[in-house]
């Protein structure tokens, strides 16, 4: 450390020691500065709230337009079987998801109307045999295995429960992509706080767990509320061996085992 540093330090130290034990005359000044300190606190507080709640979400997501402004409402009107007309199950039990170009070509070999979006489809994709690079709002990371069959066919869930009333939309929403993860905003949900009003507002693992943690226990064992489960576990610990095999699915979590939703 150079001598200059030392000097500076000494000055700083003196300044500090003075501040920490101010002479009587300074007390008044301190009150005034106390007010300004509070003000600074509030300014910092509010500024960061604004950044966190308003600026940050805007920065976090990049906005992308769908290649074609798809009109779900119009299509639902014309087709016979609702969502299933285009989003159907294949014979092997897999779910077709977003339609391939061939399905579009079925009707749109040539433009049926005047809509510029349809013209775009026909000219840029159908004519050239190029797949439409749809942006999938509900696309999950690659580690996720999701069985539409289990939810739609077995659990008889409605499409709306997870996907919302997308079938009623007449325009394709802007697709927002998280700049960090590259995942659609629909997974986290519109609400930046992660709160949800509708069942389809979020598609994170928490949403899966919400059902799988409770429903699985209900259907496969008995109704076991968290408290009851707690006491049952104590009993099991106290009297080992009374456990029924197959009582739970996962050894680790006692909910559903990881492979149910992961690959």
């Amino acid at each position, binding site marked *: 450390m150079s001598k200059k540093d030392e000097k500076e330090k000494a000055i700083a130290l003196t300044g500090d020691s003075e501040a920490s034990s101010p002479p009587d005359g300074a007390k008044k000044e301190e009150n005034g*500065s106390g007010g*300004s*300190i*509070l*003000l*600074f*606190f*509030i*300014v*910092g*507080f*509010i*500024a*960061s*709230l604004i*950044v*966190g*709640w308003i600026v*940050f*979400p805007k920065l*976090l997501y990049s906005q992308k337009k769908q290649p074609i402004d798809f009109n779900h409402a119009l299509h639902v009107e014309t087709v016979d079987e609702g969502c299933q007309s285009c989003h159907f199950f*294949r014979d*092997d039990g*897999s779910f*077709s*998801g977003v339609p*391939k170009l061939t399905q579009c070509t079925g009707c749109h070999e040539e433009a049926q109307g005047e809509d510029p979006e349809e013209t775009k489809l026909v000219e840029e994709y159908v004519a050239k045999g190029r797949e439409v690079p749809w942006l999938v709002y509900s696309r999950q*990371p*690659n*580690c996720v295995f999701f069985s539409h069959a289990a939810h739609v066919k077995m659990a008889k869930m409605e499409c709306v429960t997870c996907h919302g009333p997308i079938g009623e939309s007449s325009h394709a929403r802007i697709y927002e992509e*998280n700049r*960090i*993860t*590259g*995942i659609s905003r629909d997974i*986290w949900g519109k609400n*930046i*706080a*992660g709160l949800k009003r509708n069942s389809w507002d979020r598609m994170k693992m928490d949403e899966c767990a919400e059902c799988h943690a409770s429903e699985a226990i209900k259907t496969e064992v008995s109704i076991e509320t968290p408290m009851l489960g707690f006491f049952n576990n104590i009993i099991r610990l106290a009297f080992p061996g009374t456990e029924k095999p197959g009582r739970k699915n996962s050894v680790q979590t006692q909910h559903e085992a990881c492979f149910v939703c992961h690959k």
Partner: protein
Amino acid sequence: MKMDRRSFLSFVIGGAAGTALSPLPWKVTDDLAIWSQNWSWTPVPEDGEVGYVNTTCSLCPGGCGITVRKVGDRAVKIEGMKGHPVNDGGICILGLAGLQFLYGPSRIASPMRRTGERGENKWQKISWEEAISEVSKKLADLRSKNQSHALACISGYDGGTVPRLFERFLTVYGSANFVRTPAVRDSYELGLYLMQGTQANAGFDVENADYILSFGCGIIEGWGSPVRMFKANSHWKETGVKVTQVEPRLSNTAAKSDQWIPIKPGTEVVLALGLARVIVDESLYRREFIASHTAGFDRFVQNVLKDYPPEQVEKVTGIDKAVVVSLAKTFAAAKKPLAICGRGRGAGSESAGEIMAVYALNALVGNINQKGGVWAIPDPNYIRWPELEMDAQAAAGMQKPRVDGAGSKKYPHIRNLLHRLPEMINSTDASPVQALFVLEANPYYSVSDSAFVRKAWKKIPFIVSFSSFMDETAANADLILPNHVYLERHEDIPGAEGFIKPIIGLAKPVVNPQFDTLHAGDTIIRLAKMMGDPIAKAFPWEDYEACLEETFGDKWEALGEKGYWIDAGFEPSPWNKAFETASKKFEFASDDIGASFQNAVVKAEGEESAYPLLLIPYDSPRISAGRIGNPPFVIKTVADTVIKGKNGFIEVNPKTAIALGLSEGKSAVISTPRGSAKVRIHLFEGIMPGVVAMPTGLGHTAYDSFLAGKGVNINELIGPVEDGSSGLNAAWGIRAKLGKA
């Protein structure tokens, strides 16, 4: 207001509090967690509709049916075709890795012309038009100099429309030099021809035999149709069929057999004849067959078997005479005993004597064209193209003897003698081969005595490879006209090695060609058309697919649907109709046969004094040794006692190793009269003392970085040894010495 230190601190604390109450830190943490779980450089395979395509695998002559699973337009997995008569759902290790050939790094992406020296791997991409016209000009030039017979074609196969188109091209061009790479079927064809008088392939009813005596066949290493043999092996285990394996090394087959009889290498024929002698001596043969349907039996017994009493057999083979006798008795006592031969995979020919000794054994027990025996399977003769119109040049060229000498007076019954080609080229100043086509073969690597092959290669002025992969031959060619790989093309695959029913498999394009390649059938048709009449006239089809459709005619649609055609009701000819020899009987001792037995034992090359050990090659089911190199998945399964890093290992019995002062893992040099190589020692109790063994299929210099440079190409060390009577290459090993490195 002054922003002093305290105010600033206050501001920061306020900011921190506000931030904590905003979603920012929590959301960023969550996003970072997701980010750290999905690295952008880890590929995400595209999903899509799953579909299946049934086709035929042509990686080996096994003729298995395969089902390729596709997701969208990608092929993602190859599986065995359920219900296929040859492999019924099973599949071998190589077949499973087939997609690595399709999408692999050693694919050749477009036609290429060599720019640097041969083997330098400097290439220029050219158009198909340019490539074909270049070949056309060269060939026209050659033909104009009355040198049409100097065109040769080495092909990895000769059944089916594609090689037949090439052969047809050569014929109408004026060259008889269509040479197929060697296989044990050459020997079997010869045996069938001499003893039964038939032009046929040998089929083995292994599923119904009740005792198997194998003279070194790698039943588990890929002999015949590999999956079928695996299934047969399991069937034997289930039904208690005993297997005796005779070979000097504890191969996988020997390990799976019920009895392993180690034998001095190269003396299998002596054991076979010794067994025959015991069977005759003890009258254990099937009289009804011998009496009514064979000729020359007495002469065989007197002229041949007299030399093989058990004592003599013990001396030559190293097998205890009691074992010889009991083996003969066991064999003869079985109801449907089957003797087979063809070392390892059967990728090379055997001496005529050995084949016929084994045939004789089967004949002694009457197991010819019987359930559980050896059958003569006629070629499914389905290719009937219009007669060729040959001009004078073509006719003259076809009159010229073949460069390999096959079919000549010296080797009258042999169709292909590839091993003679290097010698023929090297023995004259001007190479008798002025232009060479190579189709689905890799002779630069696979013909034995590599140094000699390289020398011959240099003398061939113009070499065209049709390979899909940058194999050694392609790397040392002048022009590459890359073929589609088997999963991109239509092709008929007649026959399945050793199978007992006539069958034709159809290969179908599973995916669109991945590169700018062209079906070799189309290439040859386009070449013919470019060369003009009379050659063009012989190829009246618009393209290969039209040719294939026309060839199959009304069978085409059914073939396409099922993926194969089979003569399910085929039965072998009964004894009274089976034999087309002069005597119409099974021939034991014609002159040709007698000569074969006289040269039965093929000695290994080299002097014992200089080379005290015997080096034998062995086949491993995990190393592809055919025209195709091991793909990355398969090379991954190779044990670290076979390859370690780039080093290849040689198997040595601990006794031999101790005598030489060598221990496990040590570096050593193996030398033979043909060459030497650096190897590492692997001590193996399962190999006969005095014998050392190396795997085939390693030591590639071309292909990709997953394969190249690993281990030693055994062809560098072993040369051909001609069977005196047939001309076939009957080398089974070579004398060698092993020293510290």
